[in-house]
């Protein structure tokens, strides 16, 4: 049965995997960032295909819109245009490939041998209302505490970024700012 939905799924999967593979193998760092962006968009497409629209929207906003742009900006700040990354030694590539293939084979073997108890009725999309209700619920099934903890973490990360990026005055090149002090 080759319906439209199936074709779209395979196209999204191919986009995600091909762009991910190109992203870790290309020697142009800027192209690597762009391939990563398309891989993230492919994953967002898979979320749409699974009818988790909320997660797909979060994925596009945070990953494709936030992290990818952050990475591209940091490439602009740290690389000379047109520079290629140094080529890796063949020995390192071979050992990495070996480890990755063994790990992948083992994982897939485990996955295909395991009998999953699939639910009889995979439901459609989850409503935003239900998500918000459970996220801010304080009873047994609610996620209010992790929500608050994440908000504290984001605040700490923001302050940490500011402290790390702060340029301390009358500081010499031999004495770079202490990075480890920003966590407290």
């Amino acid at each position, binding site marked *: *049965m080759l319906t439209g939905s*199936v074709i779209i*799924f395979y196209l999204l*999967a191919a986009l995600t*995997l091909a762009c*991910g*593979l190109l*992203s*870790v193998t290309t020697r142009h*760092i800027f192209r*690597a*960032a762009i391939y*990563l962006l398309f*891989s*993230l968009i492919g994953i967002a497409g*898979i979320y749409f295909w*699974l*009818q*988790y629209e909320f*997660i797909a929207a*979060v994925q596009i906003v*945070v990953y494709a819109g*936030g*992290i990818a742009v952050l*990475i591209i900006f*940091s*490439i602009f*700040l*740290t690389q000379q245009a047109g520079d290629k*990354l140094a080529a*890796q030694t063949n020995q*390192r590539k071979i050992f990495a*490939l070996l*480890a*990755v293939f063994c*790990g992948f084979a083992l994982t*897939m073997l485990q*996955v*295909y041998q395991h009998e*999953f108890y*699939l*639910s009889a*009725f995979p*439901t459609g999309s*989850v409503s935003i209302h239900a*998500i918000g209700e*459970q996220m801010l619920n304080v009873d047994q099934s609610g996620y209010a505490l*992790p929500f608050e903890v*994440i908000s504290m*973490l*984001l605040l700490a990360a*923001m302050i*940490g*970024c500011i402290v*790390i*990026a702060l340029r301390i005055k009358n500081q010499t*090149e031999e004495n*770079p*700012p202490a*990075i480890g002090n920003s966590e407290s």
Partner: protein
Amino acid sequence: MQPGLYHILFISAALFFIGVYGFFTRRNLITMLMSIELILNSVNLNFIAFNKYLWPEKMDGLFFTVFIIAIAAAEAAVAIAIIINLYRSHHSIDVEQAEELKN
């Protein structure tokens, strides 16, 4: 063939090991960060697939994914601040050159 749980687990495992390969072979801090993002995304995909196909009446996988995305955003921001600071003081973001933490 109708795509199901196993197809998505295959994609997520492949994406995870692509990220691991990038992490092993790359020596530039930004590209290593990009590999970590791929790994985190494969984990998210796993959570969503299990939530969809095994426990569709619950939403726990969805919340784990949301929290992982939030933590990944914070992690990327802090990592890039550190990378830019490292570039300022060493004029390189190659991990082979950044060996001062060893001492």
